[in-house]
C-alpha cells in the first residue's frame, strides 16, 4: 500500500476530511542546550522556539491536515553549529507516541549513524562514511542519523504526538538537537470555500 493510499484509508476510517492539498511534509522540532540526559522528548515544548527551530506551534496538526511518517531524522549540533554524532554513538532507542498509542517502540537509532556501518537498510549504506579531520560548522565530516520506516505511520488531524529518545545518560551537549519527521501529507486547502 502506497503512502497515498494508507493516508486516505486511515483518514477515511477516522472520518477525517479527505480534501486537501497533497504535499510532502517535514515537521521538525529543536531542543536547545539538552546537556546530558537519559530522555529527550521532541514535539513537546514549543515555547521560545523560532520558525527556524520548529515549524509547528503545538504538538498536533491542524484540522484537515494529516501526514505519514516515513522518515525519522535526528541531528545534534554544538554551539558553533558543527554537526555531531547524535548522542555520541551511545546506544539509544526511539519511540513515537500518537494520541495514547505507541506506534514505534524502542527502535534503536545508533546503527544508522556515523562510524557504525550497520545501517538497517541499503539506502543508508554510506551512513558510516566519515572523512576524518576536524569538523567545523562549514565543514561536515559525517552524516546525520536517519531511519526510513518500513511501515507508514499516520498522524491524523488534531491528535497530539511526540518522539521520545531514551538512553543511559547520553551526552547531547550545549548546542541543540533536532528531530525531523518526513513523509507524504495533506495541508488545509480552502478551495472555493472562502
Amino acid at each position, binding site marked *: 500500500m*502506497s*503512502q*497515498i493510499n494508507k493516508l486516505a484509508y486511515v483518514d477515511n476510517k477516522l472520518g477525517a476530511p479527505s480534501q486537501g*492539498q*497533497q*504535499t*510532502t*511534509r*517535514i515537521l*521538525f522540532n*529543536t531542543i*536547545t542546550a539538552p546537556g546530558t540526559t537519559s530522555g529527550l522528548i521532541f514535539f513537546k515544548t514549543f515555547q*521560545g*522556539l*523560532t*520558525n*527556524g*527551530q520548529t*515549524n509547528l506551534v503545538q504538538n498536533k496538526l491542524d484540522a484537515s491536515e494529516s501526514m*505519514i511518517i*516515513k*522518515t525519522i*531524522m535526528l*541531528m545534534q*549540533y554544538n*554551539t558553533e*553549529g*558543527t*554537526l555531531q554524532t547524535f548522542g555520541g554513538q551511545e546506544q539509544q532507542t526511539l519511540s513515537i507516541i500518537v494520541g495514547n498509542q505507541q506506534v514505534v517502540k524502542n527502535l534503536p537509532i545508533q546503527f544508522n549513524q556515523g562510524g557504525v556501518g550497520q545501517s538497517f537498510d*541499503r*539506502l*543508508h*549504506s*554510506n*551512513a558510516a*562514511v566519515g*572523512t*576524518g*579531520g*576536524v569538523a567545523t*560548522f*562549514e*565543514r*561536515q*565530516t*559525517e*552524516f*546525520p542519523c*536517519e531511519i*526510513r520506516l518500513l511501515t507508514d505511520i499516520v498522524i491524523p488531524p488534531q491528535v497530539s504526538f511526540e518522539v521520545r529518545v531514551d538512553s543511559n545518560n547520553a551526552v547531547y551537549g550545549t*548546542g*541543540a538537537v*533536532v528531530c*525531523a519527521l*518526513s*513523509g*507524504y501529507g495533506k*495541508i488545509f*486547502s480552502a478551495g472555493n470555500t472562502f
Partner: protein
Amino acid sequence: MTAQDKILYVANKLGLTSLKDMQASTGAVYDVDTDHSGQIFSSASRHQNPSLTNLTQNQFEVNEALLVESIAFYNLDNEDGNQLGNIQNVYGSQAVIVFDLIIGNKRTMKSTPVFGSGTPFTFATSGIKNLAPAATSQINPRNQIFLEGAGILIPPQVQWYVEYQIFNMVTGAVIPTNELARNIGCYLFGTRVLLNFNTSI
C-alpha cells in the same frame, strides 16, 4: 499513482483537455534570488539566461507543465562567475532553509525545512568531496527534498514562486543572506510536459 497519472488527473480537474496530447519529457527549472528578497522565481524575467535562470517568466506556456518531484537549494557566487556552491559550505550545518512553494494563490508546500546538514531521504548518494590530504575531505550534504507519494503539478500559465528564509537552528536567529556575495538559488525537477503541435502547423 505514477507521475503521468497525476498530471492527467490534475489536467482533467482543471479542464485542460489537450494536455494529454502533449510531449512528455523530463525537465528542471532554476532561478536565484539576486535581490535577497526571500523569493525565488518571481524575478526570473529580469535574470540572465542561462547563467542565473532557464526561464523567461515564472509561468509556463500554453500546454506546458511540470510535475515537481524534487526541490533543491544551492548558492551562486556572484563575484566568481556565478559558480555553484553548496549551502552547507557557506551557511553551515546548523542552517535551515524554511520555504513555501506557492502556485497561483495557493501554498502547496508549507513551512518545509531544508537542513544545512542534509535533508531526510537524501543520504544514499550524498556527495563526498575528496580532497588531498584525506584530513581535509568533507561531506557535501544534499540540501534537497524528494517529494513523497505524488509530486506537485505546476499547470500551464499559472505563476509560481518559492518563498524562503534561512535560520540558525541552534540560536533560532535569521541568517541574513545579503552579507555575502552569494545568492540563494533553487531548482524544481520532475516530469515535464512540452507543447507539441502534432499536425497543427
